[in-house]
């Protein structure tokens, strides 16, 4: 059963190697993500991320420089992230010329983790516009009925 996914992307005026370092260096991670990061960027490595008074364990899943980096994390302090209880964050870097990189992030619910890449792709293709679009549409419908 598919889970919920949030997909965002941005175009960066820098070569892919520079973006890769920004996304994966522990020092850099602490600047754009968590307040405190303890993480070795190797597949299967376990680490920790802290956000103010919240934080939890992180497990690195894919490290494929300079294109793919993913980790699982859990908002609940203490629980070890694994299939069935955590969120998967996947970064995909795509070069657009020599000095420009498209960075895409997908944060997905644990149900999606059981899917193969081909299944995920098909799901994504069938649901272009994604979650944001679906929920926006529902919200609009809802507002219409509440005011009517």
């Amino acid at each position: 059963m598919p889970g919920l996914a949030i997909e965002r992307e941005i175009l960066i005026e820098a070569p892919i190697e520079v973006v890769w370092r920004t996304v994966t260096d522990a020092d850099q991670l602490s600047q754009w993500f968590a307040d405190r990061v303890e993480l070795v960027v190797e597949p299967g490595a376990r680490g920790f991320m802290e956000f103010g008074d919240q934080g939890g364990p992180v497990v690195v899943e894919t490290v494929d420089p300079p294109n793919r980096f993913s980790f699982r994390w859990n908002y609940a302090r203490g629980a070890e992230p694994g299939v069935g209880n955590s969120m998967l964050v996947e970064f995909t870097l795509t070069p657009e010329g020599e000095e420009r990189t498209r960075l895409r992030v997908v944060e997905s619910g644990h149900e999606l983790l059981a899917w193969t890449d081909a299944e995920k792709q098909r799901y994504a293709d069938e649901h272009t516009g994604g979650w944001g679009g679906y929920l926006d549409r529902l919200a609009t419908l809802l507002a219409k009925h509440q005011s009517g």
Partner: protein
Amino acid sequence: MTVQTDDELWSAIGDPSRRRVLELVVSNEEVSASWLAGRVPFSRQAVSKHLVVLERAGLISRRRRGREVIYQVEADRLDQVTRAMAELAAQWDQRLATIKRLAEAAHAENNHAANENRREL
């Protein structure tokens, strides 16, 4: 509410058929299972199962009207979900914007250092 850990909710709207059912409930206010079954390409039994899951996730509720069971959307819950999702998306937008700023600054610094080296040569 934390959407991140709300498994029932995530599963409930993770399924495309179920999303279709939810959308029909939302756009038609008060509906019965048989009315829904006439508007979707799957069986009445499947519709009933989807309604149970949506109800358990708090997205819809049911009541009896005469001999019929009528379903309607739980607007507050749906509103909560929509807002929580928008918040998560906004958090990622902010993080991506920070990555962009950091990477572009690092790139500018690299270029600057390269130019300095060329000048020295």
